[in-house]
């Protein structure tokens, strides 16, 4: 089970086919005082991503935005990766971008977000891999697990496309395979024991 002593300071989420709906569902289920920063990579056609922050804002009170290069990760934000750049997490708690080659035919790549989150935030990271029709993200989620982070995989039976969650489970990220409508409930209980003295973000 989860180690209640760890304070989770960053949630990274990835999905492709069906990922948008799944992510909206999660956002709508978060409790009003939820504040752990969330970064989301969705595979999309080039150009479409610019609309995502607007659409997602309607489903949450959190601030939804596309981060700028070297923007500091802050509580109460949902950060959406724009199209056509990889989004990375730097050790000083900022975002950076790269226009390097696509990974798993994807730019942004979920693996890159997850791996850099794991390297920069270690066991303070929660990784969530949602529905999707390819295997981007599985390697990254595995890395989060290896660094002591908390990994959630959307249960394939509740996923529009099973390949993405299935790949992660295949790699051994199988401790928390959770139905879509339960994921928000899970997130709401993160940091519960510490909620009264939530420390300064130390990323």
């Amino acid at each position: 089970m989860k180690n209640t002593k760890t304070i989770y300071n960053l949630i990274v989420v990835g999905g492709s086919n069906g990922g948008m709906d799944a992510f909206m569902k999660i956002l709508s289920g978060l409790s009003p005082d939820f504040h752990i920063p969330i970064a989301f990579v969705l595979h999309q056609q080039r150009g479409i991503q610019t609309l995502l922050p607007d659409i997602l804002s309607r489903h949450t009170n959190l601030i939804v935005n596309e981060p700028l290069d070297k923007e500091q990760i802050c509580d109460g934000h949902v950060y959406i990766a724009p199209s056509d750049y990889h989004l990375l997490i730097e050790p000083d708690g900022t975002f950076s971008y790269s226009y390097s080659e696509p990974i798993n035919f994807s730019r942004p790549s979920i693996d890159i977000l997850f791996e850099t989150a794991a390297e920069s935030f270690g066991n303070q990271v929660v990784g969530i891999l949602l529905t999707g029709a390819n295997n981007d993200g599985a390697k990254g989620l595995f890395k989060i697990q290896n660094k002591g982070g908390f990994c959630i995989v959307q249960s394939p039976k509740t996923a529009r496309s099973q390949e993405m969650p299935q790949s992660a489970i295949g790699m051994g990220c199988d401790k928390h395979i959770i139905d879509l409508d339960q994921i928000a409930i899970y997130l709401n209980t993160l940091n519960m024991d510490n909620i009264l003295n939530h420390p300064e973000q130390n990323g």
Partner: protein
Amino acid sequence: MEISDPEIDQLLYQVKNRYGYDFTNYSQASIKRRVIRFCEIHRIENYFDLKHHLINDHILFTDFVLQVTVNITEMFRDPSFFKSVKENLFPHLATYPHCKIWHAGCSTGEEAYSMAIMLEESNLMKTTIYATDINSEVLMQAREGTYSMKLMKDYTSNYIKSGGNNSFSDYYTAHYNMAIINAGLKKNIVFSQHNLVSDGSFNEFNFIVCRNVLIYFNKDLQERVLNLFYESLVPLGYLGLGSKETLQFSSLRDKFEVIDKKEKIYRRIE
């Protein structure tokens, strides 16, 4: 392959001492991935081999510079940027008897040629473009100005979206599967090597274009480079950054006004 953060730091430090190229202030997460990718390409399997080969093999190092920097670019990348430049900057630039534009981090030249096309169509012929990069390899390709014919379809569409007035195919000659940029466009472009980390100002410019280069630098290095740009701009000179880049987090932001927030175009105040 795994390399720890201290190992990366040590490697970059030794590279700096050995070759004078300083990557120590590049974005950490990003440069680390590039170094690991470089190892995979060259089948280098551990940190010690990497360090050993890199320090002793000059030719390998040339490729290191090429691989750890990201050189991917296009013609008229982000058409809305070029459109804004044409609409908001050109009318002002046209009032100067002679204009100088600096493309810093020009890679293989596509961005500079795109600008040259726009200038020609707006009759801003008395303009010199200085296009620089850290990398001699990409500059060679830039001078050649020969690109794959396969890309021309996308570039044509970018050109039209940027507000191009003519037919894009007028600007190159097809030769087998290559497109050769017209010599006329090269006339006003000077390609040369310049390292933003260590080299200083070399001229005064009316417009500096530095797109998708700062994302690879950490905040300290960004600050240095932005200072360099500030010093290299004439009063009321313009600065154009990449779509994810911003002056917002820099101490220099008060010395610039925002011309186009979305396209990240700024103007030096006074």
